[in-house]
């Protein structure tokens, strides 16, 4: 394979259109005359809708139809953007209807208005009168597990959506070893939201007896399946189109409102119905990140040797299952792998509560778990007076480690390499010494966190990638796949990989960015940091087939033995002397228009993938803590990643910036708050929810260690989600380094610091 375009920075294939505002997002494609849909949300946190009076809403001029939870099909459906499983035991939990009579959070969907314009729709929604039978509610997962807690879904006693246990060795025996030191901590992470700048929007209409759905989604093929499941329509009667989307980060890896809008258009004779979430709805009625409470107990010898560990995790799943147990399970599975331990007991719980539904979000359980494990690791170091870096080097997953379940292997000395680089960038050793024993109101600190991340979803779920390549008359390649561009830059990486895998110039690769389930080969879409890893395997397979066809035609046309023909940078080469026999353009023209033997040259393949790869890295953060003001300011930060060989270094770096930014917000400022007394969201807007702004970051430094991943033809592996995983814990550990106060909750905002500093005696009222 030529390696001319991969490994080098290339301008994004969509950069021009996005810089000029020409790139089309859902709302930009909306035809004139669309009907506007608005949703009436429940004004209670838990209970039953007894009746809905729609008469006043229906009387608003311009209102076409009002539909309620009493009108929807009696079908419960799953929403998670997982690949479907034909095994009923592995299928996602189907626990919601299009509109719900049993409302389970403040903001649940109970009715819709379809109107000729948005003013009428908005006015009508306000006039919908619902009567409820209110029930007690519960917001905290550990409260929800108690006997007598409000029952949220009848089939799930104690609101336990799922509970899994795992064990290695014999924990109970191992902790009897004399002289062991027990170190224990509870670590809590907040509910946060994805906050992609484009809210989720969708429109649907009927065409030739089928429903066309245009949606801001990461997973068009999966959404088609779910729209079918939710409405009872045959899946083939639904066509989903995904244009450019304004970010997703996992929120749009769920069927959000596509099923409801699919049904809505069928209720108004197939007229086009458009729905767009308002920002306030995005926060509450889409998906959020699971708030997870992690309880860790470690039994260590005096030198820090980890003898036994116990990990319990309680994930707040909110009101509906969405991705179910997979998120906390991913985190839980990482605990005994990141720091291998001979005796381990783990329990992970996903718990229904009366909060917004938690689903996938960049990192998928790992930011939560990494915060807990890496805070805990520093707690061990503190208690035993060990150096945090040296201790990690000694106890982290070593080179050669193989996970029995996934068969993933740590092929390289990645952790040490990443740590070495981060230490250098940050001048860590000097600062770590300098920041010891500080006094005074302003103190500096430096902290480290590592992370582990599994690429893609094998062996938990199906991993496959379908690709179609078509040779145009000019020798350029049209490339189609079900894997989706959501801002991360995969279309550009694909164009580079296709150019190298097929053997054509980069400018001759045309990536079809928009997915349309009528024409795009099946692919599950953007999630699990899988697009580059899985996509590259799909590309390699399809390119092999396409090249075989091209070279066969070249043989037919030139009569040269096929064994000495090659396609290099768009030219058919005789390898023996390097002579250019013809261009791919000439070959394609002749082939297509030949009166003797006409072919259109195309290849289409499905590549199923049964391997996987670990991604690794670390973050070092430096902070300045103003103790009397209870403020921690991030002053310097670096992320170092081993995500294999880089396909596009500039875009890889940009990807890490975004993840770091999300991690900074997670560590210091972001949290969605709820009123304990009513269950109402308190800050579901971008003013009161403290998303990081331009002012909240120092320069974001990024480095890479490029160990070519052996399981991938391009040597690549996960990068999309990993950058968000280690940041909050590195900040937390830096604050501990500065103040000697261990803070086991994030975001570490002034409210938290005030409480912690007061308890630690650093500030006195």
């Amino acid at each position: 394979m030529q390696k001319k375009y991969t490994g080098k920075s290339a301008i994004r294939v969509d950069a021009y259109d996005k810089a000029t505002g020409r790139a089309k997002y859902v709302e930009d494609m909306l035809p004139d005359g669309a009907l506007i849909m608005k949703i009436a949300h429940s004004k209670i946190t838990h209970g039953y809708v007894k009746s809905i009076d729609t008469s006043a809403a229906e009387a608003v001029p311009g209102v076409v139809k009002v539909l309620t939870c009493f009108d929807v099909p009696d079908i419960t459906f799953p929403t998670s953007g997982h690949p479907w499983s034909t095994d009923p035991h592995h299928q996602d939990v189907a626990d919601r209807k299009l509109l719900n009579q049993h409302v389970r959070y403040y903001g649940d969907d109970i009715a819709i208005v379809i109107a000729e314009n948005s003013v009428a729709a908005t006015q009508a929604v306000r006039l919908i009168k619902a009567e409820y039978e209110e029930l007690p509610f519960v917001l905290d997962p550990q409260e929800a597990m108690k006997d007598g807690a409000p029952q949220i879904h009848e089939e799930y006693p104690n609101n336990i959506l799922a509970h899994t246990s795992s064990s290695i060795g014999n924990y109970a025996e191992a902790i009897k070893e004399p002289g062991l030191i027990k170190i224990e901590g509870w670590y809590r992470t907040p509910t946060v939201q994805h906050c992609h700048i484009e809210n989720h929007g969708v429109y649907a209409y009927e065409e030739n007896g089928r429903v066309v759905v245009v949606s801001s989604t990461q997973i068009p093929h999966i959404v088609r399946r779910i729209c079918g499941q939710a409405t009872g329509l045959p899946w083939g009667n639904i066509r989903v189109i995904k244009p450019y989307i304004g970010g997703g980060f996992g929120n749009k890896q769920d069927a959000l409102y596509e099923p409801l809008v699919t049904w809505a258009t069928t209720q108004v004779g197939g007229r086009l119905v458009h729905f767009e979430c308002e920002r306030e709805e995005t926060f509450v009625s889409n998906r959020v990140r699971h708030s997870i409470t992690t309880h860790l107990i470690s039994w260590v010898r005096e030198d820090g040797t980890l003898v036994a560990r116990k990990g319990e995790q309680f994930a707040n799943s909110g009101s509906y299952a969405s991705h179910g147990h997979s998120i906390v399970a991913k985190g839980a599975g990482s605990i005994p792998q990141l720091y291998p331990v001979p005796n381990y007991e783990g329990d992970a719980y996903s718990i229904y509560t009366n909060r917004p539904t938690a689903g996938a979000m960049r990192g998928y359980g790992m930011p939560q778990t990494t915060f807990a494990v890496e805070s805990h690791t520093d707690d061990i170091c503190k208690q035993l007076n060990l150096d945090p870096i040296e201790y990690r080097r000694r106890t982290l997953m070593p080179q050669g480690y193989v996970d029995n379940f996934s068969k993933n292997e740590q092929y390289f000395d990645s952790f040490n390499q990443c740590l070495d680089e981060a230490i250098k960038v940050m001048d860590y050793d000097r600062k770590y010494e300098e920041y010891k024993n500080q006094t005074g109101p302003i103190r500096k600190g430096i902290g480290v966190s590592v992370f582990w991340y599994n690429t893609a979803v094998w062996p938990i779920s199906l991993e496959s990638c379908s690709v179609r390549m078509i040779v145009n008359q000019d020798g350029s390649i049209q490339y189609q796949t079900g894997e989706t561009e959501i801002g991360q830059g995969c279309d550009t990486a694909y164009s580079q990989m296709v150019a190298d895998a097929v053997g054509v110039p980069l400018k001759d690769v045309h990536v079809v960015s928009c997915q349309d389930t009528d024409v795009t080969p099946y692919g599950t879409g953007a999630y699990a940091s899988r697009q580059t890893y899985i996509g590259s395997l799909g590309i390699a397979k399809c390119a092999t087939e396409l090249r075989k066809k091209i070279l066969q035609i070249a043989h037919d046309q030139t009569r040269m033995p096929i064994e000495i023909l090659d396609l290099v940078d768009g030219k058919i080469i005789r390898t023996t002397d390097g002579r250019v026999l013809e261009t791919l353009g000439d070959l394609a023209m002749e082939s297509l228009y030949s009166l003797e033997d006409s072919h259109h040259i195309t290849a289409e393949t499905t590549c199923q993938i049964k391997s996987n790869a670990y991604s690794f890295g670390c973050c070092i953060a430096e902070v300045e803590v103003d103790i009397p003001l209870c403020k921690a300011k991030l002053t310097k930060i670096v992320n170092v990643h081993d995500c294999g060989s880089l396909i596009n270094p500039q875009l890889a770096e940009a990807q890490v910036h975004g993840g770091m930014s999300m991690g900074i917000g997670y560590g210091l400022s972001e949290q969605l708050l709820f009123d304990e007394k009513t269950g109402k969201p308190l800050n579901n807007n971008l003013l009161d929810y403290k998303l990081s702004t331009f002012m909240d970051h120092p320069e974001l430094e990024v480095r890479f260690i490029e160990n070519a991943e052996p399981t991938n033809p391009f040597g690549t592996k996960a990068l999309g989600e990993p950058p968000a995983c280690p940041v909050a814990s590195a900040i937390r550990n830096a604050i501990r380094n500065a103040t000697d106060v261990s803070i086991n909750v994030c975001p570490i905002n002034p409210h938290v610091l005030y409480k912690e500093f007061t308890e630690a005696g650093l500030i006195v009222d």
Partner: protein
Amino acid sequence: MEKHQIQYQTVHFTLNGKEVEQTVDVRASLTDMLRNDFHMLSVKKGCEVGECGACTVLIDDEAINSCLWLAVWAEGKNIRTLESLVGPNGELSDVQQCFVEEAAIQCGFCTPGFIMTAQEIIETGKEYTDDQLRKLLSGHLCRCTGYENILRAVKKAIKKAMYKNLAKEQSAE
């Protein structure tokens, strides 16, 4: 129910260098008028309450959240959207080019707003420190880039503009 009488008003303004007039619902935002009546689809809606900055346009050379502006306030104003920055043959402006080169674009949804504020900054002809630039750009939210490459792009565009001005001055001398 009380019946609302919908009121319309005709506004006259300059849009991307061209004089235009439009009769609008007095309740409409400038964002709505620009998108719906003039198909200026670069004007993005992320919150519609002035929190995210995606809908930013230049009104008399000042970067403004168009979602917070009533369409009728456009009367007599000179309004520029991202569409105005592209040259007649599709050439990118310096700011746009720098955003492209510096990988300051990911999902692209916040991009038009950022570019308009960057344009405002550049047109001041002044130099700024990084901290000042961060503050000037902080009315825009971006979830993809961590702002890092946007800062690089804006700094590069400022430099470019300075060189151009210098060259102009020198050729004038």
